[in-house]
């Protein structure tokens, strides 16, 4: 298949691919599930902000402050356009992790339908990254709410057979990932969202592994909140997004308190600004927001449908290759159905750390270990996996070197 992308031209936009790895090898970067590389356009956007527009946003009456505010709010508008949502529904955070902590903390503080109290139920799944488990687990612990979860089946899907027992009239929030960061499996969330809404619960989608890689249609998904991180989507570190329905954000209590998030303040009381500012205390990560908007523009220009189909093509080759290597077992979904461009595997008798170390000698960057999803790894009866994750700048030669390095890892320890 011809690539729907000009991968060679895309690679040239990413200066990191000029760097030499150990032993002078070229970089085969297969760890985009952890963080993506950055195109020069994003770096230029950050530099441009610092060089020409830097001032604290939403303060000061001088020209530069106006410029900074315009750049920052312009970034918000670009993110809103990317998600096809209202601009006031986009909250900038420092990370997806912070977005999820914001939600959990705000629900704890909010009253009425949004508030979480003893006896309420919160639902997650065994697929979750620690970032979408711990905020809810600890919220339940603090409030006396009950944490429930969907179990994972060996193919990386969720067991929905007990959905009626898991989602009940006591359920207040359901928070599930769009795609497993470990296995690449895509859970069937539509019935979960419907069940959540049928009992009046809110649905939070962790889009960290999906938003950077495929078109997302929030309206069709019918979700209430979406979180994703900038740095996995070609953007800078230090910037994440929380999208929420306007009426929910309006009713929620703040997360962090401080400058910018207020309406009025006295020595003993305060009232809050409207969303999204209510959730953005302090001088925000301005250059990073501008960088993220530029990253999302880059993705839109290449085309998310193109990116997704190319990642699936790379995944098809990598899966077929891995499944043909004696001693290698792909963990999770075995085919291309209900999965994204992430593959976890193990090699008989070898610890993932040792596998990754040998692959590094080939210039191949993969993630090893529990991938911040320890319950999932335990459920599989493993101590860890080696994970390859693909993105728009990977080509078929990367897949070939990847497969060669897997054989190399197996044989390095086999013959010694």
């Amino acid at each position: 298949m011809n690539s729907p992308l000009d991968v060679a031209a895309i690679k040239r936009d990413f200066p990191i691919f000029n760097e030499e790895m150990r032993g002078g090898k070229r970089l085969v970067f297969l760890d985009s599930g952890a963080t993506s590389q950055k195109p020069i356009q994003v770096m230029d956007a950050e530099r441009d902000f610092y060089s020409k527009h830097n001032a604290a946003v939403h303060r000061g009456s001088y020209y530069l402050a106006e410029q900074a505010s315009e750049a920052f709010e312009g970034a918000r508008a670009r993110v809103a356009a990317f998600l096809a949502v209202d601009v006031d529904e986009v909250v900038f955070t420092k990370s997806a992790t912070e977005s999820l902590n914001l939600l959990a903390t705000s629900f704890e503080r909010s009253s009425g339908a949004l508030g979480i109290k003893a006896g309420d139920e919160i639902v997650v799944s065994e697929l979750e990254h620690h970032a979408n488990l711990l905020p809810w687990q600890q919220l339940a612990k603090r409030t006396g709410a009950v944490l429930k979860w969907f179990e994972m089946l060996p193919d990386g899907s969720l067991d929905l057979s007990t959905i009626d027992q898991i989602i009940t009239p006591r359920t207040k929030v359901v928070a599930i990932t769009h795609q497993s960061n470990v296995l690449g499996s895509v859970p069937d969330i539509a019935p979960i969202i419907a069940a959540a809404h049928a009992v009046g619960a809110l649905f939070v989608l962790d889009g960290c592994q999906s938003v950077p890689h495929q078109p997302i249609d929030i309206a069709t998904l019918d979700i209430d909140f979406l979180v994703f991180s900038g740095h996995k989507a070609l953007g800078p570190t230090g910037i994440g997004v929380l999208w929420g329905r306007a009426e929910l954000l309006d009713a929620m209590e703040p997360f962090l308190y401080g400058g910018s998030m207020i309406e009025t303040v006295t020595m003993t009381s305060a009232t809050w600004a409207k969303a999204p500012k209510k959730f953005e205390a302090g001088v925000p990560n301005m250059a990073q927001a501008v960088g993220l908007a530029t990253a999302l523009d880059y993705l839109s220009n290449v085309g998310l449908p193109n990116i997704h189909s190319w990642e699936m093509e790379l995944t098809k080759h990598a899966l077929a290759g891995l499944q043909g290597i004696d001693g290698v077992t792909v963990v999770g979904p075995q085919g291309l159905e209900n999965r994204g461009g992430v593959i976890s595997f193990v090699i008989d008798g070898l610890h993932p750390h040792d596998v990754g170390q040998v692959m590094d000698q080939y210039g191949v960057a993969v993630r090893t270990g529990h991938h911040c999803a320890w319950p999932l790894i335990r459920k599989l009866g493993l101590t860890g996996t080696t994970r390859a994750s693909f993105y728009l700048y990977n080509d078929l030669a990367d897949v070939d070197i990847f497969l060669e390095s897997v054989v190399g890892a197996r044989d390095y320890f086999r013959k010694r």
Partner: protein
Amino acid sequence: MELDSLYQEVILDHYKKPHHKGVPTGEIQVHHVNPNCGDEITLSLTIRDGKVEDLIWDGTGCSISQASASIMSDLVAGKSIAQAQDALTHFTELMQSKGSIKGDEEILEDAIALAGVSKFPARVKCALLSWMAFKDAAIQNGAKI
């Protein structure tokens, strides 16, 4: 190949046939984990007449962490607290050396084979896991270390 300096023969030997590995039975058991990768070790020992006795450990992890546990237990089991402390100090220094020192074979014996680890910063914690567990267990058993 640079890799061979990391995975020396003696390391792989200890990995395949670890020493002092079993089910820890001591009253005081320490459990250490490397939260980055999930490697775990459980270790127990007793101190009799100023010596490290009954050292036994169990754990899961990569070749470096498992070999290091095996080598460490050889070095401290049956030795005086002072000798064990000496090995611990030298080994910690070796791991922090970024490849600049080779290690004293008189004191560290097989552990000098782990010198190559210090050139791979991501793996230093693997090598140190069992040593930190030993230190913790010794302290909990009343040793001043």
